[in-house]
């Protein structure tokens, strides 16, 4: 299955630029899983090279190896023609390689200047020379969009500006190979445009950029060449100018794609969850604005939106982790607005948290104890305050079997499970509580294809049996494949609702990015 990179001839047949980065047979395994399998990658100097692939295709692992955060088990990496052992970020910096992480590595209460110079400060005898720092930052940032004030605090900046600080950090250190890990995931459309302008300028200056992305539209807009990864292998490298979205998508998933919904039998029933005029503010900032939501029995409602548009806050308000600042939440005509998590769980709510190993499990406790977390007050696990470990262990064994959790025993601690298996246990537990309403945040993130399929089937079966599911996912495939209805959150507002089979990926994208709003009639 290891096809060689199908190197397409450079347009105009001019001599291709020399290679900035070259990977030959790079392999990285984790505990039996091959994350990168014999990767061959060539990145030319002065190009924007996009790296695309589905979740788990191995993009991040490859980039971490280039930046010295991971080390290849086999193969070699050449930088500007020289074989290099990149064993730490420090080494990467020496090689003038820089990386902008998806989650920014910034010190919030430092100024822009302090963030940029940290670690390689201009100084005289140990005393900071902040004037010189400011001057050099102004130098490197010259010509980039809106100039940043080196004296402003990073925590006061917009996300796009913070990302610019990250890029300045690299430029300040003289990096000419820039790795950008999903830089657009956190940006609003205008910011994306500005980012692309800036990346274009950097390309003009001769910088090499490796750009990890999900959105094919963006990739085709900014990249010179595209390398597609699938299941840890390189599928091929193509010129962006000649590529079509369909072609890249096919390479990503391995065959012509069809929109395949997972169909169930049930049709939505009586209203179950009714949310009216919900407002949530965090630190004085309105994160959820006037959201109305109706969810019926036997219905999967998919909530789409770019990260940071209020999903987290909405979910927390629905689960009871956060007091809403306005509006009401009813479940089966019970007013839950003022109720806490326990009361809501007693009334039939189940919740799969986004950060499940941190919020869904207690890793130091055993699997059997983790198997009833959130249901500990129910019989037969406890009666009048007394626990019944035997019943808990029995439940644990059932969950492990039903969801094929790879575990040595129910006595093993949570941390003995791999991430994917921890997740399966949490999913199994929440399903087993026989809820009326399941709020599932990114239920298949990090799962392999087989497990994802399995979870989807479980969700649909439970829906058919009467369960209402609020599905939050950054994976639009998932939303489109499962939802009976789809709502789009943008800037805290529910800007659009679709029937599940009406929506298309591109239409969702328009609403998610605010390019179209609910008031206008959908084209």
């Amino acid at each position, binding site marked *: 299955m290891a096809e060689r990179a199908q190197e397409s001839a450079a347009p105009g047949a001019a001599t291709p630029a020399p290679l900035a980065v070259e990977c030959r047979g790079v392999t990285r395994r984790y505990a039996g899983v091959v994350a990168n399998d014999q990767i061959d990658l060539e990145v030319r100097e002065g190009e924007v090279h996009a790296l695309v692939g589905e979740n788990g295709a191995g993009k991040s692992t490859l980039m971490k190896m280039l930046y010295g955060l991971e080390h290849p088990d086999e193969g070699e990496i050449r930088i500007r023609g020289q074989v290099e052992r990149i064993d730490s970020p420090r080494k990467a910096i020496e090689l003038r390689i820089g990386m902008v992480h998806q989650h920014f590595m910034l010190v919030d209460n430092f100024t822009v200047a302090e963030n940029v110079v940290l670690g390689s400060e201009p100084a005289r005898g140990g005393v900071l020379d902040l004037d010189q720092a400011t001057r050099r930052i102004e130098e490197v940032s010259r010509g980039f969009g809106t100039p940043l004030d080196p004296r402003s605090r990073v925590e006061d900046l917009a996300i796009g500006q913070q990302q610019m600080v990250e890029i300045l950090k690299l430029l300040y250190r003289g990096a000419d190979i820039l790795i950008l890990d999903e830089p657009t995931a956190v940006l609003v459309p205008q910011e994306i445009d500005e980012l692309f302008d800036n990346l274009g300028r950097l390309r003009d200056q001769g910088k090499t950029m490796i750009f990890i992305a999900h959105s094919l539209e963006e990739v085709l807009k900014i990249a010179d060449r595209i390398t597609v990864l699938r299941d840890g292998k390189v599928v091929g490298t193509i010129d962006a100018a000649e590529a079509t979205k369909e072609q890249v998508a096919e390479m990503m998933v391995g065959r012509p794609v069809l929109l395949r919904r997972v169909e169930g039998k049930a049709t939505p029933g009586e209203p179950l969850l009714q949310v009216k005029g919900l407002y949530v503010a965090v630190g004085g900032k309105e994160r959820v604005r006037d959201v109305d939501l109706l969810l019926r029995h036997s219905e999967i409602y998919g909530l789409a939106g770019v990260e940071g548009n209020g999903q987290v806050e909405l979910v927390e308000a629905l689960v009871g982790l956060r007091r809403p600042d306005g509006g009401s939440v009813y479940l089966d005509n019970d007013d839950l607005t003022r109720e806490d998590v326990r009361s809501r769980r007693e009334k039939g709510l189940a919740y799969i948290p986004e950060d499940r190993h941190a919020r869904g499990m207690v890793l130091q406790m055993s699997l059997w104890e983790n198997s009833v977390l959130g249901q500990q007050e129910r019989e037969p696990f406890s009666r009048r305050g007394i626990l019944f470990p035997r019943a808990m262990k029995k439940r644990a064994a059932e969950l492990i079997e039903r969801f094929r959790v*790879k575990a040595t*025993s129910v006595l*093993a601690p949570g941390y003995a*499970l791999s991430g994917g298996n921890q997740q399966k246990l949490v999913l199994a537990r929440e399903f087993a509580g026989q809820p009326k309403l399941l709020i599932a945040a990114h239920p298949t993130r990090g799962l392999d294809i087989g497990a994802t399929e399995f979870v989807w089937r479980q969700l649909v079966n439970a829906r058919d049996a009467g369960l209402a599911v609020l599905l939050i996912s950054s994976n639009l495939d998932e939303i489109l494949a499962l939802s009976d209805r789809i709502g789009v959150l943008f800037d805290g507002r529910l800007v659009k609702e679709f029937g599940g089979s009406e929506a298309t990926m591109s239409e969702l994208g328009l609403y998610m990015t605010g390019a179209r709003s609910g008031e206008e009639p959908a084209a």
Partner: protein
Amino acid sequence: MKTEERPPAAPPPEPDLPPRRLQWAEQLRDLGYRLLAPASSLVFAAVVGTVVILLVQRSVEDLGDVAGAMWSYGVENKDSLAFIFGRATPLILAGLATAVAFKAGLFNIGVEGQYAIGALSAAVAGSQLRAPTLIHLPLTVLAGMAGGLLWALIPALLRVYRGAHEVISTIMMNYVANGVLLYLLSGPLKDLNQPGDVDQLRTEPIQETAQVGRMVGFFNSLGFNFRPSAPLTWFFLFALVAAVVYALTIRRTRFGYELRVLGTNPRAAEPSGIRTNAMFMKAMLLSGAVAGLVGLPEVLGLEGVMKIDYVRGFGFAGIAIALLGRNSGLGIVAAALLFAFLDRSATGIELRTEVPSEVIIILQGVLILSIVVAFELVRRLAARRRLQETHERA
């Protein structure tokens, strides 16, 4: 562009549960890991103790003397056991008080002040109320618990409603307790009809009906040969029962389960419906109530009165004992007995050798530090082993 047809999922593998026998082996090994840390830190503390003695006295004979004195006083002497049990009584209670809070992830450094106020409250109830033993004694004990609880209430409220870290606030409450005690015992609560010439800062004596007797007769009927005046009260039994109740509560009740979830991963507690603020309050108040018992063996048993120079320091020892005993009921009893043994041998060192008996305090201090380091190292070792095994199976 969308979801393609997924390959059919693999057939479900056999449920991956090892036979019961294997589970036992696993538990045995876990127990080994658990004992490794206390054992190695005991050895380390002994080494440090040896070095200290050698540094100070510069003679190997002293080492022998110290060991001999520890043996003869800590073990051989016929009253040793009575002393050790008696001394272990408040230590067990203090350890339990600290451990309850620890379990919820709270540091109650205020046991010291809580037991002072608890003892004073009990002394007031014990000396002022008039009732038959069956009513008076339980009321007095409850008064002690109420005093400790009251002193824990303020830090608990400050933590839950004002976000004030309980470490600093409980320590501040210790100092305030000192002031309150001094004020009350030198004025409002002072016994004005004291026998003798020396004017002591103390309460009126506890009524007969609220006093707790010595356990010496019971032990002697089992074949021991303790002095009648040996400092061992029925509170020892009470403390052992408390340790059992504590262990059962932690392992076998929903409260204990929720406490452990909260203490080990507070971020997972709320999403699973645990009312964290209520749990913090309950844990802290329970801790204070148990702390209120610490001073009672002395006040209701050995002395029959609360004096300004009551025995101090059990609160801090309780932290050490909870750490050493890993917050488990059995562990706390064992650690308390060990500390009581060390205290007892300190007397031997004092009387029999040239070495200052305070070497024991150093030993205890070193023990605390080395135990936390040892537990951390063993934990990492065990976790690494686990992960390896999981990967081998995968």
